């Protein structure tokens, strides 16, 4: 293993040695890069940024994975909006890891929406949405993904979190998807405030809307919870009572 890979950087002018650093990383194969990157992060973050995300960075999943523990240092050199898409482009099969780190660190970032589209083949947006689900920006993130057409990601997020915001975000764009998301949220958490979120977007008389999500309910608990919240929704309440009689 080379001295550089051992993190022995003392006495080196790292900017002048950049070509050698790049070559060492490019030729490292499967050799660990963690020690070198930790040393670079401590001594010269700009050199680290050049090596992992610069215009001549060799890239590859091995390099990007070794860089991810140092994203806080890299963000001091490169804006997140520039850093993560660049890491993503260089990441090969580590793309989902880049997206996950970016989403965890910047849940409110709008640039994660197009990045999600590039990174996720199924349930596009789900990684970002799940990361944002405990952040104050969650409703806005849901709207951004809804406007980008990331329906499955929103429905999956509703199913995994029980949150009602995905349904509300879809409501003005794709009614059927909104109802699926609402049903999924209630399936995960029967106490989910789905009615509140739907009514806030739909209007003060949501009965005709809410009654349409009943066929998508998959659990008695969800149906009972919705009935409990529907005391001023006569069509919904009547339909739920009939449905509950046939539910085990």
């Amino acid at each position: 293993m080379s001295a550089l890979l051992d993190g022995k950087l003392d006495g080196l002018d790292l900017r002048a040695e950049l070509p050698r650093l790049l070559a060492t990383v490019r030729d490292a194969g499967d050799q660990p890069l963690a020690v070198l990157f930790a040393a670079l992060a401590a001594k010269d973050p700009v050199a680290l940024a050049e090596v992992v995300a610069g215009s001549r960075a060799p890239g590859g999943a091995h390099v990007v994975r070794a860089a991810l523990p140092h994203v806080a240092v890299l963000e001091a050199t490169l804006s997140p909006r520039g850093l993560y898409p660049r890491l993503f482009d260089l990441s090969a099969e580590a793309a989902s890891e880049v997206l996950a780190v970016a989403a965890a660190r910047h849940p409110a970032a709008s640039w994660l929406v197009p990045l999600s589209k590039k990174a996720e083949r199924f349930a596009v947006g789900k990684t970002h949405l799940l990361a944002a689900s405990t952040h104050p920006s969650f409703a806005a993130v849901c709207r951004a993904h809804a406007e980008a057409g990331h329906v499955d990601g929103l429905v999956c997020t509703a199913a995994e979190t029980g949150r009602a915001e995905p349904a509300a975000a879809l409501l003005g764009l794709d009614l059927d998807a909104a109802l699926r998301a609402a049903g999924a949220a209630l399936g995960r958490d029967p106490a989910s405030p789905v009615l509140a979120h739907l009514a806030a977007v739909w209007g003060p008389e949501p009965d005709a809307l809410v009654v349409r999500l009943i066929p998508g309910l998959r659990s008695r608990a969800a149906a009972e919870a919705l009935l409990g919240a529907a005391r001023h929704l006569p069509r919904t309440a009547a339909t739920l009572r009939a449905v509950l009689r046939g539910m085990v």
Partner: protein
Amino acid sequence: MRHAWLVGSAGRTPFVGHLRGARDLGRVHLAWACCVAGTAGVVEGWEAAEAARDVFAELRAVGDPRDVLVAACAALARLDSRWLTRGDLTALLVATDGTSTRAAASGLVGLHAGDGGVFRPIAAPGHPLLGEPGAPDGTSHDVPLAEVWVGLPAGIPFPRRDVPAACGVRA
């Protein structure tokens, strides 16, 4: 059935805390549109609207339109004090018995009447039905009979087109 509508706010969740309804109380037809806790979050707004729906569901026939409005406003004044003390209540209530049509309101900067999809203002600036938000005090005023009355809360322009959609009225 005659209706009261309230224009929704700007933004992605225009109907936080909104409720609307109409019912007959003896000879009097009462229509209402309110926004309770509209400045609160979505969930608190829904809870507040549900509490106000309870209020209207519990009203009983008490006499003429003026009496019905006094009773309805008194009931609204018993809503949770956190919504009243911060003035987070906009309301339009219209009662008619065919010979008399009266309204009580709070938090409105404009009031329109609509017939056949045509809306016309019926309260000029300074009209006593226009004023600060909060529980209406029960004072009512004559308004023209109409198919629908549309209240305009502060800070919102009257919609130039598709008034029903701006009020959350869905086909």
